[in-house]
């Protein structure tokens, strides 16, 4: 409801010619989605979290550029920041990142033509995360097929740039703001993630996983295993799947 209408040139318009102009149409499309604002808030929070967990600004920016997945970055920063080992962090990150696999699998067929070589899809694949996945499904049908790689790269570059700015801003603000406002920035992360995950959870199994995951973590944390997030996540996810499986059979 809050989404602005995106108006692209007609599919046969000369504005799509070449590589540069579809790229810049993609960059500009960043301004036409409310999700950009949500991402901005999330990355403000990630920048602040990185600061408060003792990481350098360069480290935080490198994580935004190369990891480019909010949940993975938060898991990484909070696991390492609370004394978790590299192996624990890597396992938690990779479990959270499995969801990128089906996203890439569903986005790339929209981006490519029959002739597109795989190396030209490497960058679009790197840009795939939940926001890109949603926006590509919405925007790509309005883009001529031969121009979609350039357009997707433009959209991805635009979103990453916005998030690099937000990471820097969050980091600097956390260092310089009064305590209350710095706390408000840190609270952006759980709020933005909770609501965007809730909105993406259309099916019962996903909603159940969200609720069970929230509820199981505090219980699991009492066991002090060091891998609480992993255990509660796998247990809650499997439980939710079990309910889904049982309901389908019944």
């Amino acid at each position, binding site marked *: 409801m809050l989404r602005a209408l995106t108006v692209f040139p007609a599919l046969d318009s000369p504005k799509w010619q070449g590589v540069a102009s579809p790229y810049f149409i993609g960059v500009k499309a960043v301004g036409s989605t409310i999700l950009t604002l949500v991402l901005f808030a999330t990355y403000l929070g990630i920048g602040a979290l990185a600061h*408060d967990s003792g990481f350098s600004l360069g480290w935080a920016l490198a994580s935004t550029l190369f990891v480019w997945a909010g949940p993975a970055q938060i898991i990484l920063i909070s696991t390492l*920041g609370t004394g978790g080992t590299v192996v624990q962090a890597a396992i938690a*990150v990779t479990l959270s990142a499995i969801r990128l696999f089906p996203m890439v699998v569903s986005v*790339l067929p929209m981006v490519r033509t029959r002739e597109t070589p795989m190396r030209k899809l490497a960058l679009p694949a790197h840009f795939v995360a939940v926001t890109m996945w949603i926006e590509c499904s919405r925007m790509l049908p309005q883009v001529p097929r031969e121009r979609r790689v350039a357009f997707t790269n433009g959209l991805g570059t635009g979103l990453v740039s916005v998030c690099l700015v937000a990471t820097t801003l969050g980091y600097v603000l956390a260092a310089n703001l009064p305590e209350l406002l710095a706390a408000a920035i840190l609270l952006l992360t759980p709020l933005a993630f*909770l609501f965007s995950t809730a909105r993406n959870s259309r099916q019962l199994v996903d909603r159940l996983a969200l609720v069970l995951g929230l509820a199981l973590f505090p219980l699991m944390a009492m066991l002090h295993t060091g891998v609480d997030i992993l255990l509660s996540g796998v247990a809650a996810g499997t439980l939710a*799947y079990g309910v889904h499986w049982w309901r389908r059979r019944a």
Partner: protein
Amino acid sequence: MSSFIGDWHALLILLLAGILPNEIWRVLGLVFGGGIDEGSELLVWVRATATAILAGVIAQILVFPPGVLASIPDLVRYGAVAAGFVAFIATRQSILAGVLCGEAVMLAGKWWLG
């Protein structure tokens, strides 16, 4: 410049614990994506587990708050999230409304209770 980068050891950890375990799934999607059925039962489980892990991280930040977020009393943090969620539902799932309401309640609660 050294304070911008910090120590190189931390960047190595970023590569090993953050970048590689995350990017591997994009690469696998790129290379082997063609043959996977999007609606397969395995992917339903994967999505549920990924959602639950993310939920655990959200809970961790709220229950064991990092940095200055710990200066906000427990009840104010939980109340802020609950109020934000009510606003999110009441506005037919506007993320922005939920976030703004949660933040407002946190600021008001902290100001009230000290």
